[in-house]
């Protein structure tokens, strides 16, 4: 459900950037979404189609780069992907770790005409 406000914020940001570049239309929006945010691409697409009507971003293609939740072991220092129900380091079995990726939620670039 948070996709509605997230999509609105994303669209505001994209339109602001497009206006700054004096672009006529936005063809593509490249998004980076961390797995941990729980943001669902299909939902963003659904809201986007609705919210972007009548704006210069109407019809723009959305591209999602999904970043897996990644932790760095505080014991052996090795990075690894966090598995759903097993939060232990696959190398040394420690359960003390720092989340280093997976919280991303940003617009990387837009393609405009």
């Amino acid at each position: 459900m948070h996709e509605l406000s997230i999509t609105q914020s994303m669209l505001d940001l994209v339109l602001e950037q497009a206006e700054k570049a004096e672009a006529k239309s936005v063809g593509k929006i490249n998004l980076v979404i961390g797995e941990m945010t729980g943001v669902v691409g299909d939902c963003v697409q659904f809201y986007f189609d609705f919210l972007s009507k009548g704006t210069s971003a109407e019809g723009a293609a959305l591209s999602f780069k999904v970043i897996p939740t990644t932790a760095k072991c505080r014991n052996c220092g090795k990075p690894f992907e966090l598995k759903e129900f097993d939060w232990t380091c696959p190398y040394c079995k420690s359960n003390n770790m720092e989340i280093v990726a997976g919280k991303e939620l940003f617009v990387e670039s837009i393609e405009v005409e």
Partner: protein
Amino acid sequence: MEIKVVKDILGANEQIAQKNRQLFDSNQVFVLNLMSSPGAGKTSLILQTIKQLKGKTRVSVVEGDISSSLDAEAIGKEGVPVVQINTGGECHLDANMTSTALGSVPLKDVDLLLIENVGNLVCPAEFALGEHKKVLISSTPEGDDKPFKYPLMFHEADVVLINKIDLLPYLKFDTDAFSQAIKGINQKVEIFPISCATGQGIEKWVSWLLGQMSQRQS
């Protein structure tokens, strides 16, 4: 033409949250964002906290709900100023809704502001309100697997309150495993087992709260 943007989608929310934070700090108000799934005990915790702090601390409450003012009415009976936000379908509070509600909070006469977020373990974790600390209430009947299902919420929390510990004899809930999982990914977290029904553990929570407030004043 490709334009590099690299901007946080929730940057606008973050900016308003920072303004809220400045407003809290200039009025010397300590602010908590209370989050949990529906029915975990946010309102019960607020009522218990008000009871414990009566005469010691001036408390105010902002109540976030999708609809209804049932919780606000229950809290209003305790004689503390309470402001209701109805999100009208939105599953979380954001900094802007909070900012609007703050116009009705007597910040100058308040030491502690408790913001009760909408019951939800996903969306509220994304939206900063300007709070000093994020408090997550996780109750024993929900199960001890919740950190694995909602990692962001457990990662962001400054405090996790394990509520309804009076029900532990009837449930398969491994408090140690639960706490261990959270501490594994969140080194800053403080965990307090409590029961809002019996009052067990509430003292430790309140003493943490008072400690935080006196640290800020000094």
